[in-house]
């Protein structure tokens, strides 16, 4: 019973903080939209080109905006000792990571479901493809959140060169990009296998992320 109370308490706190930092989420979305604008300006008004590369642009920017959320994961809670406090309330680090993954996915990735269609309209992408992008993003976004979480926990003790965290995220995201982009270009009979592959990556990441992050957090706390 106590563990359930602790989990609700953590959800409550994450919600409060996310609500008070709404502009953080807005910044990330603004980055995403502005990035697309810049692509449009630099390539010029050519509908055919955008139909070919539009989806790639959207996925690239989703990945880059995911980089902006790395610091939100554990950095503050680690510095003020909250991670240990949560541990002392009876939660294992794996559980803390899992709750953080759910809340961060909810607050940072769900808003994109509204803004991806807008971006698609800006890039003149066909309606059928918009559904596919949203479907791949539904599967791909938890993977992106997991990757940001892994990178954030790996860099808890790293105060000097935080940019390396972004590089880790980009490296790990390559498979997500390949398969998400592949689905849209694939002929209809190949959509399903590609989708299963993407779901496979999702299940892999969801199952290993709590253990990896918990191990990293433990190491960081022992060396703090």
């Amino acid at each position, binding site marked *: 019973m106590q563990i359930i109370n*602790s989990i609700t308490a953590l959800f409550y706190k994450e919600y409060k903080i996310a609500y008070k930092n709404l502009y953080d989420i807005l910044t990330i979305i603004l980055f995403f939209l502005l990035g697309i604008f810049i692509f449009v300006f630099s390539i010029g008004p050519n509908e055919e080109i955008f139909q070919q590369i539009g989806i790639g642009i959207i996925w690239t920017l989703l990945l880059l905006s995911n980089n902006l959320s790395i610091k939100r994961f554990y950095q503050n809670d680690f510095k003020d000792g909250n991670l240990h406090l949560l541990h002392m309330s009876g939660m294992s680090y794996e559980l803390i990571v899992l709750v953080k993954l759910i809340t961060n996915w909810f607050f940072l990735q769900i808003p994109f479901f509204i803004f991806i269609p807008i971006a698609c309209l800006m890039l003149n992408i066909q309606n059928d493809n918009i559904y596919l992008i949203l479907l791949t993003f539904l599967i791909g976004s938890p993977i992106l959140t997991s990757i940001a979480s892994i990178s954030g926990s790996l860099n808890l003790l790293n105060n000097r060169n935080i940019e390396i965290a972004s590089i880790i995220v980009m490296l790990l995201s390559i498979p997500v990009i390949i398969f998400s982009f592949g689905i849209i270009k694939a002929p209809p009979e190949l959509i399903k296998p590609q989708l299963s592959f993407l779901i496979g990556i999702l299940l892999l990441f969801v199952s290993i992320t709590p253990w990896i992050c918990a191990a990293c957090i433990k190491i960081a706390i022992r060396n703090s």
Partner: protein
Amino acid sequence: MLLANNLSFRRENQTIFNSLDLSLSPKKIIHLYGNNGVGKTTLIKILADVLNSDSGEIYWNGKNIKKNTYEYFSNLTYIMDSNTSNNQMSVIENINYWTKLFSSNIKSTELESVLKMLFLNTKKDIKAENLSRGEIKKLELIRLVIEKKKFWLLDEPYSGLDNDSIVLINETFRNHLNSNGMIIFASHYCPEIPNIETIDLAKYANN
């Protein structure tokens, strides 16, 4: 009952302390004392299972705390050197969060009187980042009352507090000891509490 034997800690090839033994039974209070850099916070962190000691073991009721971590944690309130209250949440939000987190059965009237005693009752809706240093420390110390655990481990509980609050904290310590509690704290200030045991960490330094 807390027992620690032969604790030692090294950092960057420098011994901070060596072969330190410690035992604490109910109704006892230990004051860790020593100059800066002598290892007070380090020892407290080792006792709270934040850091690993290089040698020695810690037992709670005869069980190694490394193997029975959660049982130990369910008896331990740890006030850290950093402030665990969230800057962006108001005083009352922080308190609500802790109450839920530790499944506390503290009554709202009790909480109200504690807040009144600490002069925080008028600042309930103020964000923690707008409080003064002493007020943040007081907010932090409210966790002692919320968690209602047996063993209190405090790192610099007096830093930044005014005289009234110090008297109040000492009173709380005495009450806790009378109800079979146990306390270890590190501070430069020496409070007037009967049967206080003082450990000078300089004695265990490198030799």
